[in-house]
């Protein structure tokens, strides 16, 4: 029930907007720290199995949000599937890459850094930083910095997804979780005495729903 109350609260407080703003701030800081031309976060849309532009800083920022592309091809797809970061410093003439890049970024970058956004066991998306200045060869220190940004972005993306799921539950009146969400909302409005009674009842229901303990013997 705690999750549903949180869901109600999250929906009420507009946390989705806050997490979007956090994600936007992360790509802007990443772009600034690396002195790059652009930076973006792609979310893996599980239902469609595609990567979607979720936040963009720098070039192409406006028109790219919401644009989609395949989840397992190209550099971002490779990074998502393999869960390995990949840094490309000097792209030479490669028409296929140029076409794909132009489709997915709005311009043809000379270089890019891409890192998977990992949270627990899941790969949630990809962070890309485009056209870092070519002052020196890419270093392990920068790779580490990229990893730190990726951790932050992964947490923000996870929160954003949760907020969206919570909103979907609340908005979907006929859906599976709708009755529970309505209950949670009503529970939150009850006076303390009755609420305590309902809490006890729900605890009993919860006990009934507990799965039997697993046999843990060798």
């Amino acid at each position: 029930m705690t999750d549903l109350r949180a869901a109600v609260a999250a929906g009420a407080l507009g946390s989705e907007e806050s997490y979007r703003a956090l994600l936007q701030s992360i790509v802007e800081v990443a772009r600034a720290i690396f002195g790059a031309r652009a930076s973006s976060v792609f979310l893996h849309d599980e239902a469609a199995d595609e990567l979607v532009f979720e936040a963009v800083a720098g070039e192409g920022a406006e028109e790219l949000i919401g644009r989609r592309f395949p989840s397992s091809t190209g550099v971002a797809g490779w990074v998502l599937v393999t869960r390995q970061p990949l840094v490309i410093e000097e792209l030479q003439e490669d028409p296929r890459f140029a076409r794909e890049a132009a489709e997915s970024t709005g311009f043809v970058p000379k270089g890019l850094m891409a890192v998977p956004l990992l949270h627990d066991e899941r790969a949630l998306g990809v962070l890309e930083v485009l056209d870092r200045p070519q002052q020196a060869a890419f270093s392990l220190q920068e790779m580490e910095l990229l990893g730190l940004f990726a951790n932050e972005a992964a947490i923000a993306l996870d929160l954003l997804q949760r907020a969206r799921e919570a909103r979907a539950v609340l908005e979907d009146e006929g859906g599976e979780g709708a009755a529970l969400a309505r209950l949670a909302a009503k529970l939150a409005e009850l006076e303390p005495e009755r609420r305590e009674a309902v809490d006890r009842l729900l605890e009993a229901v919860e006990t009934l729903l507990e799965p039997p303990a697993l046999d843990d013997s060798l």
Partner: protein
Amino acid sequence: MANEPAPAPPDEHDEDDDPGLPAWSLPADAAGRIAIGVEWPERVTRDWAFGGSTGKGVRVCILDSGVEAHHPAVGGLEGAIAVVKDEEGELEFVEDTEGDLCGHGTACAGIVHSLAPEASLFSVRVLGAGFKGSGSVLLGGLRWAVDQGFDVINMSLSTTKRHFADLLHELADSAYFQRTVLVASAHNMPVESYPWRFSSVISVGSHEETDPLTFFYNPNPPVEFFARGMSVEVAWLGGSTIRSSGNSFATPHVAGICALVMAKHPELTPFQLKSVLYLTANNVGGGGA
């Protein structure tokens, strides 16, 4: 090209197939029969380990995004298959005519070829069928490659899903016992991922040196070796080259060195091969000769 995985190689523990070698225990009169074929010098040098080797006779599998066979840096492929899912979700192993869907597999093949120019390269593409289901495609591809009995499997892939870990572990151990060396990219981020963490594989991270034959043993595992992975000029799509960084480029450097050693000493087990890598690592004494 067969659509089905080839049958597994014969079980080397089967007494009918291999009456000479005791596999499960060592009877009193059998000690002479397990004499080690390789004569190890007093000091294992790089010259002994892979001096003059071109990787000839060694089969290296690139488990990745596919390989551009005609890229000048690759020098041709022995074969290429793609692991795809049919309409029922069953895995199929089909001849791969797509080439490379990212560039990364071509980069890895090019690195192995640059170090071991006469090693035979085979591409197993496990990318391109979407992110969903990529776990079973990856596992299927690795199982297929292990069943083929390649000498070296280069894999810059990892999963964070724990329910795949057991299956991957079994596969990694099967490879190890049948003398297939699995070389896998380590993660340079603090996440639990597999199969590079298993001790039956050779895990590789990056150093910042520029020499392709410079590699270090790491006395603080789980990452066991560091090889060249930063600012590497690699083969990419459309016959191009790019400058690129990542542990996934350090991995084929070690795979290439493994191919060189195995071509010269084909009787080495993965344990012995790892020992040779250790003894010839730059921080252990192998940097010079």
